[in-house]
């Protein structure tokens, strides 16, 4: 990367101070933790135990949000990890294991269970995932009731009678500070960005080279281990646990409700939610004798009905001076480079010298059928290095399906060879890794990330693994290349359709592809914009040696640049010839350009 660093624009200091969410926040949290250590010195056990419970809820809500907020999976069974952690800790403690080791055992046991559970659970998404995770709770409760020799069944487990409130409180403070610091670090890490990409669009995440299942499993394990530690420290303090206490459905969803009430996915969301709902809970406990669960259920219901995005996303919060600073989304930012430097001519891409005799991509008998509809039918095609191929055909002729077969959105039958590698069985992220970049016909940027982050995510998951900061600096060049420098720090879902298509091109280029699959990027552009776009493709090919397959209906655009035209009709290649030859082919005229073209003698 040193080669580009010389050509990279100089980065000036951030334009505005990052009040919350930076590394300073971690220092602040640590300081707050040190202050909190003074609470037991007040000598009021009630206050200490209240603060203790608060911290346990915070750890639960915040660790839940690593899956819920970052990865966008609603894990309603999070509390089961807390319960299993409490049981593992208690069983170990009762058998005479030293206390610190018991904590480790609790975390390790749950990490293993979470890793196992992630296999069936992450087969699902959306409501199905939420449901299946919730089903884990009654399962855990049943096991706790029925595995009597281990868990004591309905009698629960009584821990040795010792007064541990103060050490338990200190442990909880440490745990809460670590949890918070980890949240700050996660949000800015490569792993965190893998999760945020998953939250937005799993397929697009895979196509930019992210291996999604291990990332989901890892976050499940991490969040489970922290919930287990919360359960362990709580069991230590309570000194007695039984199945309804640690697996009960009524308490189980409280941390989830807290995180969502504050604002899932925002750094301060879970904390704000825990502070507010915990206060409400304490008030109700003191002032109500019955129907606690009803009030809780009602709060959960009303949050769902009126504020599923959370308090910090509501306009009320932005208008409240005290909360405004907490409502900011955490985006990794670098200051935009000066305009002149941003238009730096050279992209930070490797320069390849194409060998025109070498076949880069070879398709043999590629077939993909959906039921009885054979969308791609025995396509055989060789693409040589440095070529620009125009792929045309009527709507429904199989162009996009062919792209999907190459990028492994679908697994076709037939043989696919790329750069000497047999692509059979490769995952989408591996396809990206060996050098195939693509855009989607309907753009699929990561909507709640900025333009900068969208491009940087693709860069940071390349084989050379640049850091997020380095990736963001690179991203400036790609954004400038496709004309998005003005939009650099804006969210991708605020872009127009054309801008989204440009963003997809920039994101695909950040992968440093050998082969670029471009799917109808030019449709809807003005003639001047089309011209600019053609110039881009030319530059990508001529300067960087990237091979391009371009699906497009704007024939005049293709005509300016393509070496070869491949024409599909009903999934079959009906022509594969240099442009001048192809446009004289009767079948091509009939199938694609239409009979009018024949009469005009094109």
């Amino acid at each position, binding site marked *: 990367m040193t080669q580009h660093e010389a050509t990279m624009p100089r980065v000036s200091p951030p334009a505005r101070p990052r009040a919350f969410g930076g590394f300073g926040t971690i220092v602040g949290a640590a300081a707050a933790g040190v202050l909190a250590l003074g609470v037991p010195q007040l000598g009021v056990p009630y206050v200490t135990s209240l603060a203790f419970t608060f911290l346990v809820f915070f750890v639960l809500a915040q660790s839940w949000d690593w899956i819920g907020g970052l990865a966008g999976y609603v894990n309603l069974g999070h509390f089961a990890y807390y319960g299993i952690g409490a049981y593992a800790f208690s069983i170990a403690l009762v058998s005479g294991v030293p206390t610190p080791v018991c904590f480790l055992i609790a975390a390790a046991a749950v990490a293993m269970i979470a890793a196992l559970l992630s296999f069936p659970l992450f*087969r699902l998404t959306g409501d199905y995932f939420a*449901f299946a995770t919730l089903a884990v709770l*009654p399962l855990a409760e049943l096991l706790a009731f029925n595995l009597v020799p281990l868990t004591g069944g309905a009698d629960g487990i009584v821990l040795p009678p010792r007064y541990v409130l103060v050490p338990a409180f200190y442990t909880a403070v440490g745990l809460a500070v670590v949890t918070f610091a980890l949240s700050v670090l996660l949000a800015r890490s490569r792993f965190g960005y893998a999760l945020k990409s998953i939250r937005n669009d799993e397929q697009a995440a895979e196509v930019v080279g992210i291996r999604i299942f291990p990332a989901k499993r890892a976050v499940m394990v991490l969040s489970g281990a922290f919930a287990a530690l919360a359960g362990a420290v709580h069991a230590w303090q309570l000194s007695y646990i039984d199945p309804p206490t640690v697996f009960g*459905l009524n308490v189980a969803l409280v941390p989830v409700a807290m995180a969502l009430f504050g604002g899932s996915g925002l750094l301060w969301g879970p904390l704000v939610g825990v502070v507010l709902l915990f206060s409400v809970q304490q008030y109700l406990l003191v002032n109500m004798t019955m129907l606690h669960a009803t009030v*809780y*259920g009602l709060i959960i219901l009303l949050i*769902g009905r009126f504020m*599923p995005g959370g308090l910090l996303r509501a306009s009320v919060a932005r208008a409240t001076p005290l909360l405004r600073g907490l409502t900011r989304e955490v985006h990794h930012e670098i200051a935009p480079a000066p305009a002149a430097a941003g238009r730096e001519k050279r992209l930070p891409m490797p320069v390849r010298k194409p060998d025109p005799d070498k076949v880069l991509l070879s398709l043999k008998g590629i077939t993909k059928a959906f039921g009885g509809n054979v969308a791609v039918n025995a396509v055989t095609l060789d693409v040589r290095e440095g070529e620009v191929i125009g792929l045309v055909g009527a709507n429904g002729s199989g162009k996009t399906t062919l792209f999907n077969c190459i990028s492994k959105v679908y697994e076709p039958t037939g043989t696919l060879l790329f750069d000497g590698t047999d692509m059979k069985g490769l995952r989408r992220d591996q396809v990206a890794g060996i050098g195939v970049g693509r855009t989607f016909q309907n753009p699929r940027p990561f909507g709640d990330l900025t333009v900068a982050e969208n491009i940087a995510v693709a860069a940071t998951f390349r084989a050379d693994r640049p850091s997020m900061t380095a990736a963001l600096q690179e991203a400036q060049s790609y954004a400038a290349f496709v004309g998005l420098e003005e939009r650099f720090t804006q969210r991708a879902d605020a872009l127009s359709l054309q801008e989204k298509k440009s963003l997809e091109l920039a994101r695909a280029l950040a992968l440093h592809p050998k082969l670029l699959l471009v799917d109808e990027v030019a449709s809807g552009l003005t003639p001047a914009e089309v011209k600019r776009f053609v110039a881009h493709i030319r530059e990508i090919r001529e300067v960087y040696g990237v091979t391009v397959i371009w699906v497009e209906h704007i024939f005049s655009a293709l005509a300016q640049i393509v070496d070869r035209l491949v024409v599909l009709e009903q999934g079959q290649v009906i022509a594969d010839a240099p442009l001048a030859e192809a446009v004289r082919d009767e079948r091509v005229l009939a199938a694609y350009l239409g009979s009018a073209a024949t009469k005009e003698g094109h």
Partner: protein
Amino acid sequence: MPVDILIQIAIGGILIGGLYALFAFGLSLIYGVARILNFAHGTLLAIAGVLGSILYGLLGANPLALIGIIALLAVVFFGFGWAFHDTLLAPLKRRSHFEASVGTVLTTVGALIVIGDVAAALAGPRPRNIPIRSDVLEFGDILIPVSQAWMLAAIALLTVVLHLVLTRSWYGRAVRAVTQDHVGAALCGVRARVIHGITFGLGASLAAVAGVLYATVYPIDPYAGFNLTVKAFTIIVLGGVGNLLGALAAGLFLGVAEAFTAFFWAAEWASALSIFLLLAILVAFPQGFGAARRT
């Protein structure tokens, strides 16, 4: 092991399995049409059972009154389901995808907790049942209470009626139109919100019927709901969303499997069976068995 004991157990399993299926239809229908996974579905069944038991007691334990009770609760629950959807769930459709999905989950989970707790506060948390005295049909050593035979017949009849409604009626066509393309349906004068509301009501109604029938066989308490929702969910994953016959087969299978688990192993493990089964299906059939769809 005498064969007639096995048959006797299987018959018990089929009976409870038929109830599971009836109840799973509602969940399946609501999910298939409105794309809402109603976490409170089992709770509706539980409180219908409790209400049925109270009404049955008030009406002097007259078996004929049971039909009236079922009809009454079916109507009341229909209205409740429709109103629930219209006031609490339909407005969420306007939000972003993630917010709508989280909002729906929280709203129905909140309802699950509230309904169960309020019912327990009013009617008491203890399990209730509907004791019906009935004659017993004897086939050799196999005994079938007449009431349960009637119940099976009623479930079969309801399945057929439901199937006909969904395939032959205007409502059925509207449901399919809305499921496939709600904008297109709206352009043809079919309002998705109304169809979703009716479907929600119908689902609640089916839960009510299943709840009263359930209480004639097993005691049920207001908190029993969620475990039943898990069963219904397992059934629709097994049988396929919106697939009535699939749900019927899966329901019968689960009922019989639970009965045998309880007999050969231990009753307390029978209720874990559906969860194990669910996780196993998810591992074995990543694309879903039937229709566990990836969204």
